[in-house]
């Protein structure tokens, strides 16, 4: 199994580095093009409510007009397939794990449209591991999410794999490329 682990890790990293083969299937096209940003969903909002009642967190922004939105909110464009606590609210940043945690090298992938430039970006969602549930800014969005038989497209797994501990803390969202529909 160790050999297979190495293989899949290499594939996952390869994908994250943006070196994968140029081909596409219909399903990703459907997501990558013309997909508007989903509103925050009723149940996700309800789950998040106990931790934000009576207080408006000031927005966490990039300062770059080409990357607009509040990184503490579920409706930020990069979070189109995220599931978990936003690392921006947990001591990390949109793409950095909080101190004390370890970033999982194996990830799931989303394809999210940036409303500023209209591009569909490939987003690597990396779980941060080894510290207990952050408990802040819980989000669940599922654009392009598919059943667990397609792991790379599924956010229900605990992706704290090949880390020292499988305990889940939060999820980061890093840009790893631009997706093109052929």
């Amino acid at each position, binding site marked *: *199994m160790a050999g297979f682990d190495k293989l899949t890790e290499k594939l996952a990293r390869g994908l994250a580095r943006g070196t994968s083969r140029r081909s596409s*299937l219909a399903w990703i096209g459907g997501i990558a093009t013309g997909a508007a940003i989903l509103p925050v969903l009723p149940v996700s909002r309800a789950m998040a409510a106990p931790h934000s009642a009576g207080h408006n967190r000031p927005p966490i922004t990039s300062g770059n007009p080409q990357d607009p939105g509040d990184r503490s909110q579920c409706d930020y464009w990069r979070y189109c397939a995220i599931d978990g606590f936003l690392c921006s609210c947990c001591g990390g940043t949109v793409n950095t794990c909080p101190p004390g945690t370890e970033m999982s090298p194996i990830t799931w992938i989303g394809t999210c449209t940036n409303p500023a430039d209209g591009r569909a970006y490939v987003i690597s969602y990396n779980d941060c591991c080894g510290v207990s549930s952050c408990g802040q800014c819980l989000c669940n969005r*599922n654009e392009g999410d598919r059943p667990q038989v397609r792991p790379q497209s599924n956010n229900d797994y605990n992706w704290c794999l090949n880390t020292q501990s499988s305990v889940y803390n939060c999820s980061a969202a890093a840009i790893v490329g631009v997706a093109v529909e052929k």
Partner: protein
Amino acid sequence: MRSATVMFAVALSAITLASGVKAAPPPLPEEPIPSEASLPADYPQGWALIQDFNFNSLVDGRTVVVDTGNPAQPLKGIIRTAQFGNTLFAPAKHEIYTAETFFSRLTQGERTDAITIWDTATLKSKGEIVLPGGKRQQSVTYAGTFQFTNGQKWVLISNFTPAQSVTVVDLDGRKVLGEIDLPGCAHIYPTGDRGFTTLCADGSLTSIQLDDKGAVASSKTVANVQDIDKQPLFGDAAWIGKTAWFVSYHGQLQGIDMAGAVARPLAAKLSVGTAEGGAPEWRPSGWQVIAADAKGLLYVLMSPAGKEGSHKDGGTEVWVIDPATGKRTQRIALSGGATSIAITREAAPRLIAMRLDGPIDIFDAATGKPVHSLGTTIAFNPTVAIPVP
């Protein structure tokens, strides 16, 4: 320093006890302590096991024994189901099984995966079976990652590292029998006498039968069971007899007969149907979105806001379909919404409508009328329910 008795001497001298002070009525009697409750070894059919994911402390997941008919005291007891744990229920053996993961220092240190065996009456552990390799699949709760086979004498556990495999465990013998590699396939559906079916990434399924040592005796793949791009099936099925009924993201219903050694997808093309008022359209949505009752009706949790990515948001109605006729027989409105549903096996079955953020409501499954709300008196984040069969 003071003598050993100082601290309690003060407390003791502070209180005077007597058996009766005023004329009438006599005082309330003294109550015996210690006193610990137990449950009936056989749970009534209005009860269910509900998995509490406990998102805010995932290391501390639980399974809650719930009396769905008792809004004053629905929570009957809590069983530990640590760290993305799973639960199985064997009423005939008066046992509950949990598949769990522990770390020696809560969040760090040595990892131990284990199955714990719990007594239904005392809710105390009767023992555990340690699982090798630290590879137990951790996910938001799916029934399909922990399943019985071989007449509930064995259990099968999904592994994910992300290499995929299944560990075979002999419950009666309290030992691990072996491991079956299943690259590219996920979830376990009991099939035949001593086997299981798994769904694979190319849309096929594979059915495996095991020998009496837990090794693969036969394996057979059936192609084109689902189109994962266009009509992916939700992972958890509803069982009517030995047929597992799946629903797709778009509402197609697919029965798969698991009675024989090889799973047999049913030819009937059924659907939950359509309705007005969708924006853009009605689709199944939630976590445990499909359930069945003892009469063989299917219940599907539906959202009017169906579109790409809406499939886990939760729904506002339950649509009832009779798979024998393919007709939709009822629409049940859920006042509080739900992310998961289940149906009790009572003579008058009830619909358990759960929300991931806590609230649980109970409806009459036949009439669709609300019976009562259990509020958030049960679990932090209920994911799936196992009604007493």
